[in-house]
């Protein structure tokens, strides 16, 4: 980002659609059930505390990364494809 001569003032927002994951990452409560992935969790909490990233809940309908993890029905697929910025060059020349 510095190379682009644009300073990033706010933290990068990461949109996640799993509310449990966000609350575990935020709260310093001891969760017995999360023992097995402790190490990565502490890293995540650290970067969050320093304000580098921010985990935000995002509905599954708006989750752009869906197209990268599973195969979707046609309507959903075309919606996400358009949101990624993939479009036809012939039809949308005026953009």
């Amino acid at each position, binding site marked *: 980002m510095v190379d682009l001569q644009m300073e990033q003032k706010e933290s990068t927002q990461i949109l996640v659609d799993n509310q449990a994951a966000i609350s575990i990452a935020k709260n310093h409560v001891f969760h017995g059930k999360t023992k*097995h992935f402790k190490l990565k969790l502490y890293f995540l909490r650290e970067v969050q505390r320093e304000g580098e990233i921010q985990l935000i809940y995002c509905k599954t309908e708006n989750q752009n990364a*869906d197209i990268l*993890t599973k195969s979707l029905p046609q309507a959903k697929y075309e919606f996400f494809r358009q949101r990624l910025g*993939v*479009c*036809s060059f012939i039809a949308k020349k005026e953009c």
Partner: protein
Amino acid sequence: MEECRSTTTPMNQKEKFCNEDGAAKIDETLYRTLIGCLMYLTTTRPDIMNATSILSRYMRCASEIHFQAAKRIVRYIKGTIDYGLKFCQVKNSILHSYSDSDWASCVDDMRSTSGYCFSFSSTIFLWSSKRQEIIAQSTAEA
């Protein structure tokens, strides 16, 4: 393949692949060449990233079923041959990132697939779709 019908999505939504599916084995060189070509295309077409990444897991045990699915991606590309990433000029550009994963999608070893993409203003510039290296034990972990 030049006169094939085009499809609207690169992969059948309900299709699951596995290592040993009982179908006839095919020439692996041909399959690997095809996957290699599709991999090259993913640098400008993030929409086929997931399908290509799933099929590339079966390079060493390619069967007729996997080859059919790979040909479906080619048919999808035929229908969307003029598509590409478009970068437009905008005033307020914010860096956004999306992260998602499914859970235990791989039939053979129950690993999950995770994907992320970073977008700057309206178009994404960095994306990935990958099978996780660990076996996630809960959806929150995945």
